[in-house]
């Protein structure tokens, strides 16, 4: 397991991807920090982080696109299968390697509050909890990117898919607030969501019948529930979407709160997507 982790970590720095990821993140943070903290003479570094959120949309797909897709296209996944290491160990090693790459710019960013403290009073706890929240958000996004990369053997497709999904997550709050609060709108929202889920099932199983059955059964159940309990649907879709919105969770950290539920939330997302990645790769043996 250690060997896979080391190899992965090294591979980010024998190529360009690791450097691009780190440099990009640091440049953007630097610009915002210069504008807000240094020129604006504002002591709270966590505010900068809320502006850097958007950059994650662009750079997380760059970091995650090759992690599984490349193995498949270069046929090195056969080596992975034949090594005496379990698939979950390999996936976790790869994931930890990416988290380590992401930790590097976070460590550099941790210097900002320290530098700022030379010029005034800085609340370290809120600054560092902001960074922690931001790190957890990134790790959760990376796990999603890794899962999407495991679905395809093309790095380009993996990057585009990851960007699309992250963008949808980023815009989630704005989009849901535009939706009407009626039960009917919620019903349509849920129906669309189930269809999207069936599509993911199809992508993972490549089996029309399973996907079709999942879609049909879930849609019918939804329709029945809607018939009998319309009141429950009012605003339910919005609640779900807000609940799913990964980017919103980091807000409490940025406002200076250490939100334990958000920590648990992010960790759950990470575990779920690592699990899905392992399944998606194990599945290749059965195709």
């Amino acid at each position, binding site marked *: 397991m250690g060997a896979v982790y080391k190899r992965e970590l090294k591979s980010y720095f*024998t190529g360009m991807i690791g450097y691009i990821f780190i440099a990009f993140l640091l440049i953007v943070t630097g610009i915002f920090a210069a504008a807000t903290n240094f020129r604006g003479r504002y002591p709270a570094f966590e505010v900068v982080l809320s502006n850097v959120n958007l950059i994650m949309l662009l750079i997380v797909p760059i970091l995650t696109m090759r992690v599984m897709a490349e193995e498949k296209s270069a046929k090195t*996944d*056969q080596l992975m299968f*034949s090594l*005496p290491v379990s698939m979950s160990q390999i996936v976790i090693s790869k994931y930890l390697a990416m988290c380590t790459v992401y930790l590097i710019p976070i460590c550099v960013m941790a210097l900002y509050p320290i530098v700022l403290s030379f010029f005034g009073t800085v609340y370290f706890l809120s600054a560092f909890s902001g960074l922690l929240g931001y790190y957890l958000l990134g790790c959760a996004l990376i796990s999603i990117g890794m899962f999407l990369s495991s679905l395809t053997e093309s790095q380009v497709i993996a990057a585009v898919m990851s960007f699309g999904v992250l963008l949808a997550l980023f815009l989630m709050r704005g989009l849901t607030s535009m939706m009407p609060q009626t039960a009917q709108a919620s019903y349509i929202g849920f129906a669309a969501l189930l269809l999207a889920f069936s599509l993911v099932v199809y992508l993972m199983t490549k089996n029309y019948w399973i996907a079709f059955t999942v879609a049909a059964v879930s849609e019918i159940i939804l329709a029945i529930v809607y018939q009998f309990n319309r009141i429950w649907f009012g605003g339910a879709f919005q609640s779900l979407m807000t609940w799913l919105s990964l980017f919103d969770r980091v807000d409490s950290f940025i406002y200076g709160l250490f939100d334990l539920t958000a920590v648990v939330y992010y960790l759950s997302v990470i575990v779920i997507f690592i699990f899905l990645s392992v399944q998606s790769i194990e599945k290749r043996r059965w195709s």
Partner: protein
Amino acid sequence: MIEVKNVTKKYGEHIAVNNLSFTVEKGKIYGFLGPNGAGKSTTMNIITGCLAATEGQVLINGLDIFEEPVKVKNFIGYLPEQPPLYLDMTPYEFLYFVAEAKGVDKGEIDDELDEVMKITQIEDVQDRLIRNLSKGYRQRVGIAQAMLGDPEVIILDEPTVGLDPKQIIEIRELIHSLGQKCTVILSSHILSEISAICDHVIIISRGNMVANDTIENLSVNYTGKSTILLTVKGAEGKIRMALNDISEILEYEMETDENINHLKITIGLEADIREKLFYKFSEIDCPILSMVTENLSLEDVFLRLTKDETESEVAKLLKEKVIKEDDLYEDEEDDEDEEEYESMFGKKGDDN
């Protein structure tokens, strides 16, 4: 040590491997033979656990590869059809990584790498990026990777594909020496290659096993006899009498078509009765219109063999088609090698 039990693999409707069963014993070199698409790679992938069988079971040292994959994979070194190499690493780094992942002790890794690189002769290129290595060197790095961690079985999928003749000979010698230490299973679609290195051959065609025997038994079946095809003009009875006088003839078949007789004569390998036949028939005034010694190469036989689906037909073919032993290994191969050499060096000259 390896038991393959009723393994079937389906890709959708297509059956890649059909109810395959065989056992692999310790300390032998096994050859897996079949034309492209016969299911060789699929079978090897199933044995190594890279692919799940639709039905059936693979036991290695009594352990199911899917129930205890990590334990079982410690017994196996595998080189897939396309060597699984990380192009952004050097052979040394790559092999170090594989050794670590296979759980070789830290202190022993360097010694083992030295040994493996020496055997596969990649010491000179160990610090170059794999991306920049030729196909032959990549193949060797792939074999080196499979040898790491002292596996009990080494499985090589078409290890000599894409190598030049000199490398092919070297790799064969390498495999031969590997066979002294552990069990080797290799696949190929070149019969002469298999017969040159393997103790035991398993021939598959379209997912079915058509032969499973030792090289000795196979070559007795394939090459015990030789055939002469004759066309003789004359009366049937006269010819039959003449043939009875020649003691070397084991059996013959005869088809008569208006005074023209087509003969198929089976003789022992060492016998050469062409001159005898010539004088005999001239004695009885029956002119020989044509005389051909059947000289089927092993590859031809193999191709014919794998075209047929059932084993009985195969057996029939074995009886019918006979090959001359000497042509099989040395002469033909050397000729091929020389030709390839010439074309290779010729090309190089052109480039310069």
